[in-house]
Each structure stands twice: as structure tokens, then as C-alpha cells.
């Protein structure tokens, strides 16, 4: 009998597992895939190592910082800052028609750029920052308000508004067009007030260390262990049933599989609106270069681009929406040691159903076709890297679906979040993206917070 079974060895599941194992709970993480990390994973392809998932760790804080999400997270996991040793970004930009707004890990620089490009708006930007700080005291109702409405009431310059929403939604928007103000606040702070960082060895360094820590504490990690059913008796989880028929009795279940997906495992029909899956998914192309991007003048960390005046964040009709996207060079962080081969990653909104409907040959051809078109769109905003490409890879919404198990390959989960982590079933809780915290630090904190609140109390 386990104290807790955790579904999913992604960031949130691993963090929750570490907390529970540290305090001597008997805990098992079930991962349906052969690899850990969920969305934030890594793999080898033609002898090279690739990272997938987010480009950077948001919520950056330099060593010695005691406050804020990263510091809190490190204390909760008993991790010294040097173990992750995040290198800060070199500098990023939001590029819209006619305006480029640069930002770094120093908010004052961003505020000065806003003042330069949008006269009169800088005090309003500061009022928005103040509003972020106060929303938490206003409770859940304020957190669920439309961020579009709140931001419009403070910032009256439409283009600036769109430019602020662009990185925020790209980094965590589960719903089309809008986002809860609570989530907007968390993301805005993590990007503009704290900033971006990355371990030299990539996200895999963090994922691997978390898994090692979990196992060293006595936690059990089962790969290729796909949950078929969460068996419920009289309103409580009785056991978890795996695909191969194994039944695992447990006192509690903590699921990071997503809200609609978890409800389905319990055979709960519930009301359809409450289990609405997300629609937001992405393609991403990865280009390996024969040189460091900085050697040919490409020194920005992230470029968020949008080629129309309004930022249309929704599932596209076509396979991919090239009007907007994010371009990242993982080399462009201030590392203390060499960061490996040059690399460019380009992401753009994509339509899951269109990709899923392709037959294998069409799928292969479309990956090639859209790789080229993504690169073509990107070089309008960063120096042309195409003659330097020595290897490529590409993932699509169906890849995301395969690795994360999320319906529609919805990268940030379902649009309705469940902040308190509880479900209609007494001893079943959820963590991860559908609990409402996003980004790497956010999702780790989600696992910790739910474990602390419900599973470490007794």
C-alpha cells in the first residue's frame, strides 16, 4: 500500500515526489513514457542531445536571493543555488510592426524602453506592476478575472498591451486570446520582473537531478507504467490500475496528467464544460549550427515576434500560424563555460487536429515544409542562420500529445484551472499545469504546494 501514487514524472510530479519521500512517505511515480520530464524533456537524435519544452527557466534570481519563487523552491527541495547554476539571459526582444521592445533581467531597462517607444505609458506600466502585487490579497475571484480587461483598464495604448501579452501568453496561455489575471500576474512577474535563465547543460540537468534525488530518498519511479484507470469506491480512490492489469492500492493519488485526462481515468463524466481540453499547441523547429550564433551577430536570447498589430493567440486554421512566434538561441545566456553547439529553436502556434489527420508520408513532408517556412519567418527578425545549419529536428502538436498525454497536444493544459488542487474525489488531487501554475519554476512549486497542503498534513 502506497501513501501516495503520483501520475506523471514531469516537473510537478517529481517535485511533489521529493517532498513526500523526504518526509518518509511511501511514494511511487508512474510515468507512461520511457523518458522522464513530461513536456520538459530531452532526447538523443542522430548522436546529438536535444532539449524539448520551455526554452528557459523563468523566475530567474541570482545567487543569494532569499525571496521569490526560485529561492522558495530551492529551499523546499533542499537544493543549493549552485546545483542548478542558472546562467542569466543575454537580452531578449518583443518585435511588432514598427516597434522593438528589448527586455532583460533588469526591469528598469524594460521600463526605460517602454518610456522611449510609448511616451506617457511608463507610469502606467508601473501601475500594472503594482496591480500584480495587490491581486494576491484580493483572493481567487480577482485571480480569475480576465487579464485583457484588467490590463486594458490600466494601459490605454493598444499596441503596448499586445506587446505585453505576447510573451506572457506564449509562455503559459492555456486559453485562446485571454488568460486569468492571476496567471497573467505570475507569468508577467516571472518574465519581466525576475527574468530568464538556463543551466549550461540545459533543462535535462534539472530533470535528471530531480529524478536522482527522488530515488535517493527512497521514492519509486516506474517508467512505461501507463495508468489505465483510477478505481473509485464510495467517493474515494481505492487503487490505480495499470495498462498491463496491475492493481496498485494507495491512500492518495496526485495526478499531473491534466484535469480532463484525470477525470477520464476515474470515468467521471462530470459536466462537459468542466472538462474542456485546451486548444493551444505549437510546432517547434530545432536547427543545429556549425557556429555560435553570436559569431555572426545573433546575440539575443529570445525574440517574440508578431507581424500584425494585434496578437492573435488562438488555434490556427492552417497547420501552423506563421504570423507570430518565438525564436530562442539556447547559446545566448551568460554562461561561465562553453554551451555546446550553436542552436536555434523556433516555435509557432499550430493546429493539433490538422497534424493528427495527416498520414505518415504527409506528416513527414509537412514537417520538412514547415521547418523551411518557420526558418524563413524567423530570419525576418534574427540574423539569417540558414547557411550554417548542420542538423535539424522538428516537433509538432502530435509529438507534444505523445510526450505529455495532453488532449489536443495542449501545451499548457486545459483553459479552466483548479487552483486549490482538489477534485470531486476525496483522496485525489491534481498538480502541474492544470492546477494553474506554469513555467518550470511554477510547475515545480505546484507539485510542492499541493503535496504540502494535502499530503504531508497527517
Amino acid at each position, binding site marked *: 500500500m502506497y501513501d501516495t501514487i503520483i501520475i506523471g514524472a514531469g516537473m510537478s510530479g517529481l517535485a511533489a515526489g521529493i517532498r513526500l519521500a523526504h518526509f*518518509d512517505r511511501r511514494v511511487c511515480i508512474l510515468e507512461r513514457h520511457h523518458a522522464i520530464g513530461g513536456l520538459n524533456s530531452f532526447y538523443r537524435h542522430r548522436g546529438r542531445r536535444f532539449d524539448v519544452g520551455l526554452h528557459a527557466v523563468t523566475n530567474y534570481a541570482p545567487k543569494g536571493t532569499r525571496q521569490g519563487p526560485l529561492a522558495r523552491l530551492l*529551499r523546499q527541495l533542499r537544493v543549493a543555488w549552485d546545483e542548478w547554476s542558472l546562467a542569466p539571459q543575454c537580452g531578449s526582444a518583443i518585435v511588432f510592426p514598427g516597434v522593438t521592445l528589448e527586455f532583460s533581467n533588469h526591469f528598469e531597462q524594460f521600463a526605460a524602453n517602454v518610456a522611449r517607444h510609448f511616451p506617457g505609458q511608463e507610469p502606467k506600466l508601473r501601475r500594472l506592476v503594482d496591480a500584480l502585487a495587490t491581486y494576491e490579497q484580493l483572493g481567487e475571484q480577482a485571480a480569475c478575472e480576465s487579464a485583457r480587461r484588467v490590463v486594458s483598464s490600466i494601459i490605454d495604448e493598444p499596441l503596448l498591451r499586445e506587446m505585453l501579452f505576447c510573451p506572457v501568453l506564449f509562455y503559459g496561455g492555456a486559453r485562446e486570446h485571454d488568460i486569468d489575471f492571476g496567471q497573467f500576474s505570475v507569468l508577467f512577474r516571472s518574465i519581466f520582473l525576475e527574468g530568464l535563465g538556463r543551466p549550461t547543460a540545459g533543462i535535462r540537468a534539472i530533470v535528471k537531478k530531480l529524478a536522482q534525488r527522488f530515488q535517493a530518498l527512497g521514492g519509486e519511479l516506474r517508467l512505461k507504467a501507463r495508468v489505465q484507470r483510477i478505481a473509485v469506491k464510495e467517493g474515494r480512490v481505492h487503487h490505480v490500475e495499470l495498462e498491463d492489469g496491475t492493481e496498485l492500492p494507495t491512500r492518495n493519488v496526485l495526478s499531473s496528467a491534466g484535469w480532463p485526462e484525470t477525470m477520464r481515468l476515474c470515468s467521471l463524466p462530470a459536466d462537459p464544460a468542466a472538462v474542456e481540453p485546451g486548444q493551444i499547441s505549437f510546432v517547434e523547429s530545432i536547427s543545429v549550427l556549425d557556429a555560435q550564433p553570436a559569431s555572426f551577430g545573433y546575440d539575443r536570447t529570445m525574440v517574440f515576434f508578431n507581424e500584425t498589430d494585434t496578437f492573435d493567440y488562438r488555434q490556427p486554421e492552417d497547420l501552423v500560424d506563421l504570423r507570430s512566434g518565438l525564436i530562442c538561441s539556447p547559446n545566448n545566456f551568460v554562461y561561465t563555460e562553453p554551451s555546446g553547439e550553436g542552436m536555434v529553436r523556433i516555435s509557432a502556434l499550430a493546429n493539433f487536429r490538422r497534424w493528427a489527420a495527416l498520414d505518415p508520408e504527409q506528416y513527414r513532408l509537412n514537417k520538412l515544409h514547415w521547418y523551411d517556412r518557420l526558418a524563413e519567418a524567423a530570419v525576418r527578425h534574427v540574423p539569417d542562420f540558414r547557411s550554417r545549419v548542420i542538423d535539424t529536428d522538428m516537433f509538432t502538436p502530435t509529438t507534444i500529445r505523445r510526450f505529455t498525454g495532453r488532449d489536443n497536444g495542449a501545451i499548457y493544459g486545459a483553459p479552466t484551472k483548479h487552483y486549490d488542487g482538489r477534485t470531486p474525489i476525496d483522496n485525489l488531487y491534481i498538480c502541474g499545469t492544470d492546477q494553474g501554475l506554469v513555467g518550470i519554476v511554477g510547475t515545480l512549486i505546484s507539485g510542492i504546494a499541493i503535496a504540502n497542503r494535502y499530503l504531508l498534513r497527517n
Partner: protein
Amino acid sequence: MTADDIREAILEILSDIAPDEDLSDLKPDIAFRDQLELDSMDFLDIVMELRKRYRIQIPEEEYTKLASMQSTVEYLEPRMKDIEKS
């Protein structure tokens, strides 16, 4: 355990929770919250570590006794006097 042993035990817990902190000049009479900027999640951890290591149960309404090193040692001394130093 003596008051000194308890102080030592608390320092050990604090250095596990906040491995980056230099605890050598921790002031006994100033609140952990102010010196180390510990938050409520961290206080819960101190309580849970005491339970894990020494089987000491601290009721929730008495968490406030753990504010500083001095108050923590005073509070724990009678409760830990029969515990063997590990």
C-alpha cells in the same frame, strides 16, 4: 538533549533547508523571518523536520514559538530533555 544540543540540531535543520545561508553569525534573539527571510512554508518544514528527526509533535497554534533561535530553544528544552543526542 541540552540547550546547546538543541541549538545545534536547529542549526542543522536550517542549513539543510537553506544550504546557501551562512549561519555562523545567526543572532539568537532576532526572528528567523527577519534574518533569513523564511516564510510560512519554511516554518512548516522546521516543524516537520523536528517530527522526522526527534519525533517531537508541535501543535499548529504553537508554531509561533519557533520565531527565533532563543525562543525555539526555550520552547523545545523541556520537550527534548529526555531525548538522546543523535
